[in-house]
Structure formats: C-alpha cells, structure tokens
C-alpha cells in the first residue's frame, strides 16, 4: 500500500519533507532504474518497495527491475556473498562464465536507456558492462559488509565495480580502495510501513495468538533470515544459558529470500538444536509477514541481533524504533545504531549475549531507558526520509558532473 510523502510530516516534521521536494525538483523527470536480485525478502527489497514510489512522487521517473538468474547463478552469488563476508571460497573460470551468461541474458531484456542506473549489491554488478551503449551514469550500491573479504572474493567483482561513476557503502569500514568517489549512506526503516507502524495491544495479542504464542512469560526475540551469518543457533544457546536464571520464552522468527539457497538447511539445524522445548518458537514466516514481525517485536521484552556479519542490520533499527532494548553483535553497521549501554547493548559472544539477556530481563527500568534512547537515535538517523534525501543528493552529485559543491 503506497504511503504519500505528506503522511511523513507528523513523524518527521514538514521541514524534512519540504527539503525532499526541493531536491526532487532539481531531479524532475530524471529516469532512474534500480536493479537488484529479488522482489521480496531481505532489506534491499524492503527499502526499494517503499522508496521507489516516494521517488516517483518527488517527480523522478524511477523504476525497479529485478534481474533473473539460474539456480547455478544464485548458488554462485550466495557463495560470493559468503566469501565477501570472509568465508573462504574459490572462484574459477566456470563461475565467471556463469556470471557473465546471466548478465548478458538480463541485458537483453532490461531497459537501461536511463539517466541513472542504480545497481544494488554484487548480483547485478556486472550489468555495467553495457554502459558504453547508453549515456546513463552508474551507481553501485553495496549493502553488505565487505570489510574483510576472503581472498579472491573482492577481486571477482572489483573489475566490474571500478567501471561505476559512484559507489555507495553503509559504513566507513566497508569502503574499499577504488578510483571513483564513494558515498557513505546508511539504510533506513520506514516508520509508516506495516513492519513499523503503531499497533494496538489487541491487534498484537491477536497476531501472537494466531502464531501460537502466549505472552505470560517474557519474550526474547531475534528476527532474521535463517542464515548462518545471523547465528540463530548461537542465539538459542545464549537464551538457554540465560533461562537457567531468568525464565522467558524465545522467538526465532525469520524466512527466506528467493536468492538464498541455504535457508532451508539452517532452519533444519535450528529446529534440531531446539528439540521439543515448548518455550522456543521457531517461526518460518513468508517475506510478506510484516504485521507479524511488527507484533512480535512489540510484544518482546528483549530483542537480540547476534549476527556474525552484518551490513547494517535493519532489524536493530526496527526494534529500537519500537523502544525495545536491543542486544546486538558489535559488527558491521550495528554500532552505528547502538551506543553501548546508552541506546542498546553490544556483545561479542554467546556468553555476553546470555549475560545481557538475564540483565535486561531483571532490570526493566534500565531496559526501558535503553529503548527510549534507541528510538530517539533512530528518529535522528535511520528513517526513510533521511535515506531518500541522501540518495537524492547522490543522484545530484553524479548528474551534476561530480562537483564538490552543487548549488541548488
């Protein structure tokens, strides 16, 4: 359901919205195509679903295309995703061939006669090979943590990335040594989406009941895809350790994205480890389960994000926005969202996570203050309106010939 720009005024104030309109006027009619690899599932699809209609309302001719891939291609890009996060995987000529074929095939049907091609993550990065056939400027938007890639991983995509006019990363430590300018733009949450809007208590309880969850015991939750890099088994072990001292129930709520072949395997592992513990709820939800996630986060006393690697960790901002105390790993973009013991808790281990689960369940006043500070921090930094503004500024920079100062 599309939400218009004016509906953000009660949340962020008219100054913010007026500024977006001013920037939009400067880009009126500009044709921009966003390309990623999945329409549903994952943070990128979630942001584009909300952002593309807003860009259109601001007067940009914005489109969203999804690249199609073979099973081999998505296995390769999942390996590449893991390798960019540091897991050793080697890539050979056959992989390069698979990647090339899929890019070439997609270029036959993608309409790239635009002013700006905004390409998201490694899967479609190779589409830039067609740039000489069009006059478009090309921006590569990296959403993942590429600060410590395994050998060969960055080298697989670097020759493609080098051809872009601008690259965008979510945090300073992700930036690479590249010849073109780089922008640091954090992603964001949409405060008006089904995932984040206000919910009444009755609605929350009704959704929980439908999911088979009763709220007599405090709830500890992690919301994430079933992916090893989110360490759901680690969360389970941390919670089991904390439960010896403070009783609670655990929700592990996630789903799969259409470009992630490992999800089913990880889900199976988590179920095996949990056994038949009635206080553990493992929910495999479809990508559209936004209201369910919203209700689960709002019903939780503590939210966990024990990622091993993380690009940004949108679920952290989602929970902070709902004033929930969040215990999260100090990885990737998460420390941008949490100042330890002020707007949340940063941990590094299963034991540390267990300790803080116990602590926050035992000291609800402190937990509440963390949540309130976290909410304020998200308000100032991680709402969709800020994100739209940063992208508009990036578009202006590239469209205006990459000058240091663009006079509006």
């Amino acid at each position, binding site marked *: 359901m599309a939400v218009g720009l004016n509906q953000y005024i009660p949340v962020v104030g008219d100054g913010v919205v007026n*500024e977006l309109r001013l920037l939009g006027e400067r880009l009126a009619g500009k044709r921009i195509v966003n390309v990623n690899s999945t329409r549903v599932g994952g943070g990128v699809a979630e942001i584009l679903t909300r952002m593309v209609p807003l860009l259109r309302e601001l007067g940009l001719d914005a489109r969203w295309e999804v690249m199609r891939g073979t099973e081999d291609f998505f296995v390769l890009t999942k390996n590449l995703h893991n390798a960019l996060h540091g897991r050793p995987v080697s890539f050979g000529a056959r992989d390069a061939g698979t990647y090339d074929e899929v890019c070439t095939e997609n270029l036959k049907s993608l309409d790239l006669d635009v002013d700006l091609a905004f390409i998201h993550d490694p899967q479609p990065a190779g589409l830039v090979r067609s740039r000489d056939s069009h006059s478009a400027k090309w921006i590569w938007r990296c959403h993942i943590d590429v600060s410590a890639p395994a050998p060969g991983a960055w080298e697989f995509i670097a020759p493609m990335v080098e051809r872009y006019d601008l690259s965008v990363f979510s945090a300073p430590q992700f930036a690479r040594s590249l010849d073109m300018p780089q922008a640091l733009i954090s992603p964001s949450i949409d405060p008006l989406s089904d995932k984040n809007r206000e919910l009444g208590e009755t609605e929350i309880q009704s959704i929980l009941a439908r999911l088979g969850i009763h709220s007599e015991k405090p709830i500890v939750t992690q919301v994430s895809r079933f992916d090893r890099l989110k360490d759901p088994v680690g969360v389970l072990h941390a919670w089991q350790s904390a439960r010896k001292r403070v009783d609670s129930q655990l929700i592990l709520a996630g789903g799969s994205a259409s470009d992630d072949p490992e999800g089913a395997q990880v889900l199976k592992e988590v179920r095996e480890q949990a056994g038949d513990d009635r206080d553990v709820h493992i929910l495999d939800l479809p990508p559209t389960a936004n209201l369910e996630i919203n209700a689960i986060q709002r019903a939780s006393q503590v939210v966990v994000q024990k990622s091993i690697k993380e690009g940004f960790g949108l679920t952290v901002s989602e929970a902070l926005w709902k004033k929930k105390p969040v215990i999260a790993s100090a990885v990737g973009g998460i420390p941008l969202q949490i100042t330890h013991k002020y707007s949340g808790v940063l941990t590094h281990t299963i034991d540390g996570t267990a300790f803080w689960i116990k602590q926050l369940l035992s000291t609800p006043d402190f937990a509440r203050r963390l949540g309130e500070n976290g909410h304020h921090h998200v308000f100032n930094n991680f709402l969709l309106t800020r994100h739209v503004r940063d992208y508009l500024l990036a578009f202006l920079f590239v469209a205006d010939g990459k000058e240091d100062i663009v006079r509006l």
Partner: protein
Amino acid sequence: MKEFGDALKHVSLSSISYHVFDARLRLESGDNDFSRWIENALGESELAAKLRSLDPYTHTEEGLRGAMIAAINRRLGE
C-alpha cells in the same frame, strides 16, 4: 519577526545548519546569517547579540532551533 520565528519552526535542519555554521565561515566574522539579518533588517541589536552568542557546538541542531525560537518569543513578549 513573528514570521521569522514561525518559519524557523518549519525549515529543515540543513537550512539551520547552513545559516548558522556555514555562515560563520562565509562571513568570517563569528556572525551568522540570522543574527546579521535581525540586526541589519530589523534593527534588533539585543536580539541579534543573543542569537550571535548561541554556541552552535553546544546544542544539537534541534536544540539550536528551539533556543532561537525561544529568544524570539521572549522578545516578542516584551
């Protein structure tokens, strides 16, 4: 002056930042665009001095907006 105070409530933080922080570099006089305008266009030297004295580095941008609006409202109330 009332219109200025009202407008301050609605402009973006980037605007406030530009006219307070950027102005100090641009004008090279420790002044900012708001205090300069209030003094030169409205003849309000005391209010201008008050706005000039606000240290932009010890306020958040929203705090700065609030402090300026409060100073203007106090002057209007006199």
